[in-house]
Each structure stands twice: as structure tokens, then as C-alpha cells.
């Protein structure tokens, strides 16, 4: 028994398991609801490869923001709820000294290793713990306003900005990634329930799942 080979899960070269979407049983591409008069929102799961949470110790916020800028190449603005999105990568503040950083590619956590030192703060890889849902279209603000008691109008919620809120105890981090497009990050375990509610809420305006 002593010379038994290490099981694969203990091998340092192990690959992360293939990720399965929690939405899969209820994800139905196509047009739904009241779409005869036009499709006013498009729902999709963006499935980014990396979703990270970074937190700075008090007083280290500026250094952490600099680290995020350096590693991602994003011009992350300072200030409450400030953020930026360029399609493939996104970053936004969701709480004092705390940031969500997203990349469509896997392995972003490794890129931060050694940059976000223990003196600056912490890095938590949530890539398998969050589900990213995108809602886009002229009625996106209208549909989201049924869920969340925050102001979705462009002057109050600018392009790139992030917001933390919740819907029936399902925490949601929301980033505006376009003039009429929002990316919503929810706990993976609640994602299917949230997705179904989002589909129901979108029925009246006509929606398409991509």
C-alpha cells in the first residue's frame, strides 16, 4: 500500500473538472413569451472561464486597484461601484475595497498569484461558484427593475459600473456592460431558480435565449 501511486486528484498537473452549467435543464435557446410583436430582451449565459473576488486590507485599496489594472490591462476606475468591461474582461467594485474580476479565459487566478501579495489583500477564485447571466435589449432595464430595487437608468448606473443587491435573498452582483446590457453574477446553486424567474419576468416583452 505504501508505494501506491498518488490518485489523480492529488497530482499537481491535474486539470480542473469540466464545468457543467447549472442552467442546462432549463436553458432553451429560441424565442419565447410574447415575441410576436418583437423580441425586447435577449438572455444568455456567458460562461466566463475566470470569476475572481479580490479584497484589499484597509488602506491597501489603491495598491489592489493598481494590481488589477496591471494584470488585466483594464483601466479600472477608483470610486464606489466603479468598473469597466471590454468584452473579454471585466472588473468592478462591489463593496468597499472589494472587486470582482472576470475573464472569458480560464487561469486568471494564476496571473494574480504573486501580484496580490498577503500584504495587499486576498484573492478568491469563484469561477466554479458563480453563474454569469447576461440580459440585453431595449427592455433589459424594465425587466431588471422588477427584480431589484435599484435605479437602472444610465445616469445613475453608468457603463461599466457594478452594483451589489439581492432578489429574495439571492445575492446578485450586476455590471452594466452596455447601454442596454447587464451581466448578473449569482451563486451557482441559486442560478437555475434565478434564471427561471428571469425567463418568467421576460415573457411579457418577448425574449430570446441565445
Amino acid at each position, binding site marked *: 500500500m505504501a508505494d501506491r501511486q498518488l490518485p489523480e486528484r492529488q497530482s499537481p498537473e491535474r486539470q480542473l473538472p469540466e464545468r457543467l452549467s447549472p442552467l442546462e435543464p432549463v436553458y432553451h435557446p429560441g424565442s419565447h413569451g410574447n415575441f410576436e410583436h418583437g423580441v425586447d430582451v435577449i438572455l444568455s449565459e456567458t460562461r466566463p472561464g475566470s470569476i475572481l473576488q479580490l479584497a484589499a486590507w484597509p488602506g491597501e485599496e489603491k495598491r489592489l486597484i493598481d494590481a488589477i489594472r496591471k494584470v488585466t490591462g483594464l483601466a479600472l476606475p477608483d470610486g*464606489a*461601484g466603479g468598473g469597466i468591461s471590454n468584452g473579454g474582461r471585466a472588473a468592478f467594485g462591489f*463593496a*468597499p475595497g*472589494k472587486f470582482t474580476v472576470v475573464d472569458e479565459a480560464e487561469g486568471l487566478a494564476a496571473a494574480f498569484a504573486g501580484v496580490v501579495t498577503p500584504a495587499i489583500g486576498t484573492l478568491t477564485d469563484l469561477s466554479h461558484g458563480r453563474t454569469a447571466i447576461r440580459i440585453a435589449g431595449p427592455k433589459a432595464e424594465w425587466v431588471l427593475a422588477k427584480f431589484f*430595487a435599484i435605479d437602472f437608468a444610465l445616469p445613475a448606473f*453608468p457603463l461599466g*459600473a457594478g452594483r451589489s*443587491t439581492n432578489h429574495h435573498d439571492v445575492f446578485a452582483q450586476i455590471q452594466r456592460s452596455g447601454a442596454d446590457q447587464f451581466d448578473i453574477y449569482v451563486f451557482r446553486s441559486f442560478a437555475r431558480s434565478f434564471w427561471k424567474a428571469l425567463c418568467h419576468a421576460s415573457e411579457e416583452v418577448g425574449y430570446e435565449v441565445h
Partner: protein
Amino acid sequence: MLITCPYCGPRDVIEFTYQGDGNRTRPQPASQDLDAWNAYVYDRLNPAGDHNEIWQHSGGCRAHLRIVRNTLTHEILSTAFARGGHKSAGHKAGGNQ
């Protein structure tokens, strides 16, 4: 009822959790002063008017807040982070525009 979180801006009261009277002073953990502990655990001012309170924005940024609330009118007179250090207080719209 709206509470203006220093980070998130105005939010509905359902996003917040009351964490207790903000006037209490906790004795040192090793303190043997029973009167001080008794006052910390039980004594409350219970004013009819402005009251210092600790709240948490539990349904948002999860920051702990120091709030002055009028117990007669429920008016929120001031909000601030309970912990110093994050002095970037004051809601900004944020964004990359």
C-alpha cells in the same frame, strides 16, 4: 424607507439589518468590572429622538454602518462606515464614461 449607504447610495431598508445600539462601549475582554459588563449588555438609552445605531448593509455591500436615526420620525440623519480606513465614502456614480 430609504437608507443611503456610503458605498451603494440610497437603498430600500429591506437590504439592511439592524445590529444594535451604537452607544455601547464594550469593556476589555479581560475586564472583571461586572458593572461595566452589565451596562454593556443591558443598559440602553431608549431615547425618543436621535439615536446612534449600528446597521449592516447585509443585502448589498455588506459593510457595517454607523447611522443616526430619529426614533420618532424614522428619519435617517447620517450614515457612515462603522470602521475607519475606507475613507472613500460618498457615493459616486462610478463607471468608465
